[in-house]
């Protein structure tokens, strides 16, 4: 834990609006997320994944952890970013996130540093949603068109 409980500022506890949806796919589910920047679309995509695992209304911000993702290209970066988040949920601290803030979004060296706000997943407190097995490159799309103000990502997760 980087910060003790109660050490959060007012801004830390503001929950961003939902900018994601779940699209049809026969066996799995496709996450579609967007935002005012590609960074925001990435953050929203991460939240879309957590939103599929539980009902986020039951999640409180009690701890914050920092993850890092590195890759060779943008798709790889999105993939590894989500994989790191899934890992944060799957092992100690078993973190279910309420909010993600990307503090470094480097699209030249393909590197992300992200602060993950949430708490340890607890059966009984948090409704059990679907289990995400893996992130896939299947039909992955990254729309990055600043001139039209279009920033969107599509990812199929294996469930």
């Amino acid at each position: 834990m980087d910060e003790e409980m109660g050490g959060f500022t007012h801004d830390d506890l503001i929950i961003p609006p939902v900018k994601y949806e779940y699209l049809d796919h026969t066996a799995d589910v496709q996450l579609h997320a967007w935002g005012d920047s590609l960074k925001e679309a990435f953050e929203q995509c991460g939240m879309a994944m957590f939103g599929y695992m539980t009902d986020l209304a039951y999640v409180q911000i009690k701890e914050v952890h920092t993850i890092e993702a590195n890759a060779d290209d943008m798709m790889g970066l999105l993939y590894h970013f989500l994989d790191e988040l899934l890992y944060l949920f799957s092992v100690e601290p078993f973190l279910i996130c309420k909010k993600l803030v990307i503090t470094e979004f480097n699209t030249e060296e393909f590197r992300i540093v992200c602060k993950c706000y949430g708490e340890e997943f607890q059966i009984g407190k948090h409704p059990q949603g679907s289990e995400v097995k893996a992130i896939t490159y299947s039909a992955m799309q990254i729309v990055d068109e600043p001139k039209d103000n279009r920033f969107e990502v599509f990812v199929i997760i294996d469930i």
Partner: protein
Amino acid sequence: MVVRNYNEELKYLEKINPYCWRIKKGFQPNMNVEGVFYVNNTLEKLMLDELRNSCRPGMTGGFLPGVKQIANVAALPGIVGRSVGLPDVHSGYGFAIGNMAAFDVSDPKSIVSPGGVGFDINCGVRLLRTNLHEKDVLPIKEQLAQSLFDHIPVGVGSKGIIPMNARDMEEALEMGMDWSLREGYVWAEDKEHCEEYGRMLNADPSKVSLRSKKRGLPQLGTLGAGNHYAEIQVVDEIYDKYAASKMGLERTGQVVVMIHSGSRGFGHQVATDALVQMEKAMKRDQIAVNDRQLACARINSVEGQDYLKAMAAAANFAWVNRSSMTFLTRQAFAKQFKMAPDDLDMHVIYDVSHNIAKIEEHVVDGKVKTLLVHRKGSTRAFPPHHPLIPVDYQLTGQPVLIGGSMGTCSYVLTGTHQGMTETFGSTCHGAGRALSRAKSRRNLDYKDVLTKLESMGISIRVASPKLVMEEAPESYKNVTDVVNTCHAAGISKKTVKLRPIAVIKG
């Protein structure tokens, strides 16, 4: 991808008998062998509809229909025989789900592909019998279902209750069910009724990333979510009295327990890690494939061998996992009936893997060859007298366990000689999805599904309410169609039909 309209696409498909279609070369580029898929009239429609939808102008969804995926697999280097689609086939990651393909190990160009195994390595089904009758269970069915639900950790975020540290984990990965036996979780004879005797000998935990081990440790002995389940079932119909009695299934109404689970986060991470490695190997060895998702490496490359060793460790993890749940199931029954599991005759009938790659000997063009057989959503179904099946089933053929969807029937089949020659001893694995999860949630109502299950006399305990809709029988192909097709096509033989009376799910 080749762009053609639907009628042009159909020219590459030929119905060769009422249960079998041939996919000719040219349907997808660079096909080394032909494809084939097994369907009856009902399933044929689903299969062709999927193809027709993908041919509609403006379709840019990006995922390929199952029939195209079967053809792409036929284009992989070193494939022999045919790329086979089983009746429950549907679109998957790279390979279709319900797809099997064999590669000649002696051909240096032959490949191994994690996509041909799936993320849930050694996902499989285990069947336990009891000497109870339905009427023994009915008065305490709800308590028994609850007890099973309380004993087996299910659903997203659940943690195993079998005590385990990092060293135990290393040993379990190497030893598979031998570990479970040593630790006292299973009976010696359980191993006998398990593919590979519950242990792949080439497992090498040192080829597994720390990340996988960390993901696996808290999840050992958990059922998982999605389509995984533990069900209390009763024998509904016996088609082959002799084979059924060899399995200890003597009469209708006899109670059995089916467990469907896999290698949990451990296997998922092994597959994820391997896909990254293989992308690199493909560039280096200039392996060309039709679809980026068919990431693969030559069998004899470092990446190929490392994957097979890590995959074997994941397979062992899955067997230990199913064994741990076998232990918990026996405990739950013992407590409810106040009898020892032994006295309840709770033996393992068999345990099958339906997401795995194995080295096997097969006859190709009259010659014995060593092949790497990928089965993804496909079950091994070896015929009578095959040396790799246990003594008890030498005369019947290997038991094949086909799990239905929630609230529908399951089946026990046996392997046949025809299956051995036509599909490298492989058959279907389950129902196969028909509706997307989102569509299921939109079209089905939670209460309706539960009321329907209740009216069928099925108790249900489920951790996630939305799974009730997603996993409703309407979301799946009819398992009876799937099994009847395998039986009619001769690739496996119907033995017993099982009906659920209680379902425990993630």
